[in-house]
């Protein structure tokens, strides 16, 4: 549905998007993830024909953004970072203006407005001036505006920013209900958002594509190195934390040991393994061998948050640590 090839966008002095390529299939929800200033908004603006690319190409439903902008625009619903609202209009008036602007025939306008106000739960503010709406309502009116012409592709720039947790859940549910018939790209820098809503995730950092995969795969891929939580108890005596730490570090396959917590005679560590090695058995053996009690031993999964930090950090530190850089390419 969406195809981006070698897309580059250069501003006067900076390269906002540097040679990124990806594809999105019909009906998918794709999360566009990256720290602030990574180039998410720029990429979205290219896809919506707001900005022309400096190099490379982007197409939506087979139409190139430069050659057939009208066809692309007809098929896209776009919610920019700040919803594009006219404060002096009433909600229903605004929606029917946007509907006409998007080319809905006059006869269908009323029906479409009713439908999207229902879907976005803004029925109770239909006749209010947009200037009087709260941030959450404005965001939802923005979303209603994006879906009014039932577009094939929805491009949403931080759709849940500024909403309270309940509203965020509502928006997520709405997005999930829209998937399937619509292809959705949403950008965010909030990771749980991607975990909850998206099938696929595209991570970009400093204009470069860092990773593109399904959310599940990405989590697995990075879990090649596992993290284990160990709680050690020394019956009767106070164990020396450094001694225990050294003992754990000496176990085969361990790359890093961090003391998390020490309470009375209990010590809690987080141990990370080298890539591809399984260390739980080794750790258990080491602890028992030293004569301490093993209270707890379990694997902790890396959250998307950790992955994101690892990926983006690796990208930044690619010069100093080329090995880590390779892993993410």
């Amino acid at each position, binding site marked *: 549905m969406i195809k981006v090839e070698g897309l580059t966008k250069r501003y006067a002095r900076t390269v906002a998007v540097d040679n990124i390529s990806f594809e999105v299939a019909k009906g998918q929800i794709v999360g566009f993830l990256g720290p602030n200033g990574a180039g998410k908004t720029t990429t979205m603006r290219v896809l919506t*024909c707001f900005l022309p690319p400096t190099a490379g190409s982007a197409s939506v439903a087979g139409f190139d953004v430069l050659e057939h902008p009208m066809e692309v625009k007809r098929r896209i619903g776009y919610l920019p970072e700040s919803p594009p*609202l006219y404060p002096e209009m009433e909600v229903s008036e605004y929606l029917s203006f946007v509907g006409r602007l*998007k080319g809905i025939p006059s006869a269908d306008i009323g029906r479409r407005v009713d439908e999207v106000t229902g879907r976005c739960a803004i029925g109770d503010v239909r006749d209010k001036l947009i200037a009087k709406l709260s941030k959450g309502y404005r965001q939802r009116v923005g979303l209603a505006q994006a879906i009014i012409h039932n577009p094939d592709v929805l491009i949403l720039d931080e759709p849940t920013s500024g909403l309270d947790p309940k509203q965020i859940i509502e928006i997520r549910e709405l997005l999930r209900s829209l998937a399937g018939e619509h292809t959705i790209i949403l950008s965010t820098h909030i990771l749980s958002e991607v975990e909850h809503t998206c099938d696929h995730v595209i991570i970009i950092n400093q204009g470069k594509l860092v990773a593109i995969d399904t959310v599940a795969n990405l989590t697995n891929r990075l879990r090649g190195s596992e993290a284990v939580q160990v709680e050690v108890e020394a019956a009767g005596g106070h164990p020396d934390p450094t001694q225990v730490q050294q003992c754990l570090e000496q176990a085969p396959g361990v790359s890093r040991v961090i003391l998390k917590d020490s309470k009375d005679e209990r010590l809690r560590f987080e141990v990370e393994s080298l890539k591809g090695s399984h260390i739980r058995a080794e750790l258990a053996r080491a602890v028992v061998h030293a004569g301490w009690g093993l209270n707890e031993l379990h694997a902790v999964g890396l959250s998307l948050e950790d992955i994101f930090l690892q990926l983006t950090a690796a990208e930044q530190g690619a010069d100093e640590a080329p090995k880590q850089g390779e892993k993410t390419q």
Partner: protein
Amino acid sequence: MKNVLLICRKELRSYFASPIAYAVMAIFGLIFGWVFFNASRDFVRFTLLQSQEGGGTVSVNDSIIRPLLGFAGTIGLFLIPMITMRLFAEEKRMGTIELLLTSPVKDIEIILGKWLGALTLYACVLLMSILNLALLFAWGKPDLKPVLVGYLGLLLQGGCLLALGTLISTMTKNQIIAGIATFFISLLLWLLSWYTAFDTNVTAQVLGYLSIVTHFENFGKGVLDSKDVLFYVSLTFFSLFLTARSLESLRWRA
């Protein structure tokens, strides 16, 4: 065309939802009314004097309507920046320009719609003066044709300055800057005619031709000259063409 009208309606709706439209119309109505009052009072006194001395009749068209229409254009010079300053600057500031530029509407349709909306408001403003002139028609016998030509001239002149203001509004996010810049550039175009007052060489002729007011003189007299119509129309087109280019450059720079 459907899109042009859609944008035009939206602009008019915004003008009349905010105080701008009413303020502009009120300012114009007050100033024009005051000048009209003085002009007609002087005219009455003058004709009374004239008839006592047994002189000929004085034309209402020449002594009241012509100077007043010229004066209406001058007030327009001050009001037009107030009308055009928000057209694009406000959309840029509010981010709604993203909505317009990502909708299946051509740039030129957006520009024409906005310009047409501004022109309609300006026509409403000029309509305020008709209230005054109607009095002349009620109690006097002015010629209607020169009045109509005069109004056509005002609209053409206004359309020209409105197009210029639209162009300037695409260049900034700040309404105030757009308004001030439009005012000074219009003023400059206005004052170009002053150079011709004492000179008749080529420079003077060129500058005189470029001035916005010199082309209104004929309209004021009730003379419809294609040369003047062409001047206003071509300057309007040129400004709107530059607006389209400016909007396009916005995409490349933004």
